[in-house]
């Protein structure tokens, strides 16, 4: 049974890794077409993606702007909502959290279409800033969840102790609540960052072909056939994801963030 379990998990890992490995290996192709295994391996594609081809460097810059902007904005909106939810537990705060998570819960193409209409009426269609806001709206649910988990982990007796020793609400907030929730806030930030980086359908509708992010550029190129440079994008994105999640696992409690039981180790 134990051996069978290990074999099953390894098989699952293999299947999970297969398409990703194939895409990454294709980046080494020397020619203009994708082959697997790669022919005439070279690292020249990395130079094209990061330095010399403006199509890709522009797309990468846009992706970075949208992802960091959306992550910052999402955390800034999610923080007060999560805090109100935790400190008051009122009906209104619950409604705020529920409605704030709505865009993430419906099929992405519907919110993509909706935001596309929304920006066409508010002069935002095809601007980078509207892309930033759109992703923040779409992914706000993630920091909302992580920050709420962080706030729930605060021992209320710490707050009582602070109050007994004469700390005002603001001081207690600054010295007890904030420090204990920082790892969860950062996790939320990075979850949005990574998912925004990889998001396709919403940014597709709100960009209106006026600019392109890396995922948009890849989708456009899918029609003209693959080029190895696209695979470099895949490697870059994968590296970013692994680094981010490894950092969350290293400095935060990833199993807890994912909802594991606290009593067992």
């Amino acid at each position, binding site marked *: 049974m134990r051996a069978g379990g290990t074999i099953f*998990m390894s098989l699952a890992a293999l*299947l*999970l890794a297969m*398409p990703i490995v*194939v895409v990454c290996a294709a980046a080494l192709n020397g020619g203009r077409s994708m082959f697997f295994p790669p022919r005439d391996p070279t690292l020249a594609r990395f130079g094209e993606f990061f330095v010399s081809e403006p199509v890709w460097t522009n797309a990468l810059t846009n992706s970075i702007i949208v992802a960091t902007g959306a992550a910052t904005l999402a955390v800034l909106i999610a923080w007060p909502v999560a805090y109100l939810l935790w400190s008051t537990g009122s009906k209104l705060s619950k409604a705020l959290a529920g409605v704030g998570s709505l865009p993430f819960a419906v*099929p992405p193409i519907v919110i993509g279409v909706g935001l596309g209409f929304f920006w066409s009426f508010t002069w935002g269609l095809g601007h980078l800033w509207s892309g930033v806001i759109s992703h923040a709206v779409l992914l706000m649910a993630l920091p909302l969840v992580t920050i709420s988990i962080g706030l729930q982990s605060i021992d209320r007796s710490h707050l009582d102790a602070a109050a007994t020793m004469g700390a005002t609400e603001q001081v207690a907030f600054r010295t007890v609540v904030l420090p204990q929730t920082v790892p969860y806030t950062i996790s939320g930030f990075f979850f949005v960052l990574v998912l925004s980086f990889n998001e396709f359908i919403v940014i597709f509708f709100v960009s209106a072909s006026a600019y392109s992010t890396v995922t948009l550029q*890849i989708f456009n190129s899918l029609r003209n056939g693959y080029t190895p440079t696209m695979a470099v994008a895949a490697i870059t994105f994968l590296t970013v994801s692994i680094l981010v*999640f490894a950092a969350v696992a290293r400095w935060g409690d990833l199993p807890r963030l994912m909802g594991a039981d606290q009593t067992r180790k």
Partner: protein
Amino acid sequence: MTVSENIQIAAERSPALVRRISPKTVLYAALSTLVVVFCIVPFILVIVISFGRKVDGAGWVWDLTFDNYQRFFVGVLWPDEVTFLYLQQLGNSFYFAVIASVLAVLTALPFTLLLTRLKRSAQAIWLVFILASLSMSEVFIVMGWDILLSNNSGLPKLFQVTGFTQWLKDVGWFQTLRDIGLANPRNVKFKPSGFATILTMSYLVWPYAVILLYPAFSRLDPSLAEAARTMGANRWTVIRTVTLPAIRLPLMGTTLLLFVFLLGSYVSVSVFATPDKQTTAVAIYSNIRGSNLDAPFGSAQAVILLISASVCLCFGHLLNSKAEAR
């Protein structure tokens, strides 16, 4: 948020204002406005525009007509002529989403059970791996499977070179593959096909399935299963009578969530599905951004997709609260 902060700071400076409106009220008002404008208005716009009317060669105008919905359910020429083309597309959406989500949950189930029995540090490493593949963009995943399944450089080529194709022909299974459209006379052929579509969609949500099942599974109390074992139940009896009933609700909830997510998946269907198996999501795209330029009809399709999704989500929520109540 920044606005509300400014107001808060301003409020602190002038005590007269504090007495009248508390900073919390301002914060609530600001957040409510923000959430309503960005999370509700887009949906309302889709719903309102779905009642609009297309103008030939000039986009569309506001209106209150049910033509778009009539076209969706029975076709433009109803009652003289009835077509179910768009209902069929919705049916395809459901078909792909149901099979792919069930497949993903069924295979993620044993995996997650095994995962939660590992040490905490090992779990963290697996979670990093799963989250990394979860966050991979749909376009990369489709690209990967497209290469893997392509006739010239993927699995079909591998099958041919290793003689697996010949073996299939010898055993007689090749004809079966041809009958279900997964082979041409010379070799196996995986795309375009429903198989490739479902495989990719299932792959796409598999990490989500693990992540969603993980909390429920890691809270399973191992002592219950151990007690049953001590009392003489064999392994399968334990799984059937102790483990499965405990995770039944999260299983169904997860399947529903994945199903809703897959209802709107666009890239895998547009790349892998055969033309007669296109889905509502693809139709929405071609109406709003593609060649048809019929935003009202695209919106009507989006509304129908939204309603389907909401019904499923409400059902899932009901299951969840039932699970919490126990």
